[in-house]
């Protein structure tokens, strides 16, 4: 029997752990939630999150997750995946409510969406930069977005896919080596979201 891919979910306290946990199980991963005193391990580590940037960072500091992530990323075959706020936390700083420093793994900033209706809430499609074979099945597929802030990576090579909202494009998937982040919620995007979770590993190369 093929060995199952191991997924570890970081618990920041404020998030919809239940949904992500169930979606990962559905995608066929052997899934567990990180315990307080444990080190990060597994083939994929997921940093989920809903809520505000500052409360997310507060929880990261309290639970010493920054150090754990740094240690995990230094290992070979590591893969960090941030969802929604989890993606935003990867960046250097955010301007939500007040200027807050993030994890700083990707150079760039998080700023408010410039549009008439905020938050951006609903289903939307992705535009990929490079059209590789395993990406093709996600063209014209809808994913569920809900956010008021967007990421602006400094280095445009880090933009893996973008999405159009109210006539302007924003970075909806970010990728820097083994660090990956999506602004949308695959765990809330129905069957296409589960498919997306299943092919996570393939996005690496």
């Amino acid at each position, binding site marked *: 029997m093929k060995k199952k891919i191991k997924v570890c979910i970081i618990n920041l306290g*404020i998030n919809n752990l239940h949904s992500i946990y169930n979606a990962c199980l559905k995608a066929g991963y052997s899934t567990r939630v990180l315990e307080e005193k444990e080190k990060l391990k597994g083939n994929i580590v997921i940093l989920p999150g809903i*809520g505000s940037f500052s409360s997310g960072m507060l929880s990261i500091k309290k639970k010493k997750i920054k150090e754990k992530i740094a240690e995990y990323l230094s290992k070979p075959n590591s893969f960090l995946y941030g969802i929604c706020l989890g993606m935003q936390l990867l960046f250097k700083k955010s301007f939500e409510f007040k200027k807050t420093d993030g994890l700083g793994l990707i150079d760039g900033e998080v700023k408010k969406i410039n549009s008439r*209706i905020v938050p951006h809430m609903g289903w939307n499609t992705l535009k990929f930069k490079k059209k590789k074979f395993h990406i093709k099945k996600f063209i014209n597929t809808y994913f569920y977005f809900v956010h008021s802030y967007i990421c602006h990576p400094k280095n445009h090579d880090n933009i893996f896919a973008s999405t159009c909202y109210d006539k302007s494009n924003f970075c909806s998937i970010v990728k820097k080596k083994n660090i990956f982040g999506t602004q949308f919620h695959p765990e809330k995007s129905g069957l296409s979201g589960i498919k997306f979770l299943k092919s996570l590993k393939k996005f690496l190369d």
Partner: protein
Amino acid sequence: MNKNFIRIIPFLDIKNGLLIKGINLDGFRIMGEPSLFSDFYNKSGADEICYIDAVASLFGTLNLTNFIKKCSKKIFVPLNIGGGINSVDKINKMLGSGADKIVINTAAVEDPFFIKEASRIFGSSTITVQIQTIKINNNYYITKSSGRDIEKISPKDFAKKMQDYGAGEIIITSINHEGLKKGFDLKIIDEISSKLQIPCIAHGGAGCFEDVYNVINKTNITGVGIASLFHYEAMHYFKKINPRIGNINYLKSVKRKKKINTIKELKYFLKRKKINIRL
């Protein structure tokens, strides 16, 4: 013409663990097991699913947690949960069970600052405020506890206040139209949605596809909440269509020559009318 992306959201009112459907938020009829309906809507392409415990605020209970836990194992679209949520602790409990967005009505009317606190902790996009509007002698007021208590506050002012306090979304329910299947209250929905900068959902009165098209076309909403139009068609898809209690004879008497998947059909209908929608 409304260019927003439109979400189609089935509204499931729940009382004592059973799906109910009322008229003007009153006179409930038992429809059956809610999970049957929500599974069906999930498969048919609902963009979100909204559960409201219709009596929670009245009795001060919180019954939905176990139910949501079960649902979130199978349903992978956003779940909006409401009914009797009036503290940060209860929100935490709901989110922990698998809810994605929290719908607040009574607590927002009684203590508007609660919305401020909740949105600061959980983020605006998690907090949805339901505004139940009622029309009396051509004046609009808001109500709490599922339309039981009328408060002499203008829905427009209240909606604006909720937006300023950090609500991420507003559900506009028109009690006078709810359950009647005669079309939405376009006037109040337009008045509220055109003034706000947050997403608005119209709820109450969808009777046919044309009604849904009208409310999308003539107002600035981003979502439509539908109950009767879906429930009374969906029940024909289940082997055991009837609940064990309630007015079974009526439900049995509703005969259909052909089963219609109203969510799918509605979405195709709207797409043909060039509405921005997910298929």
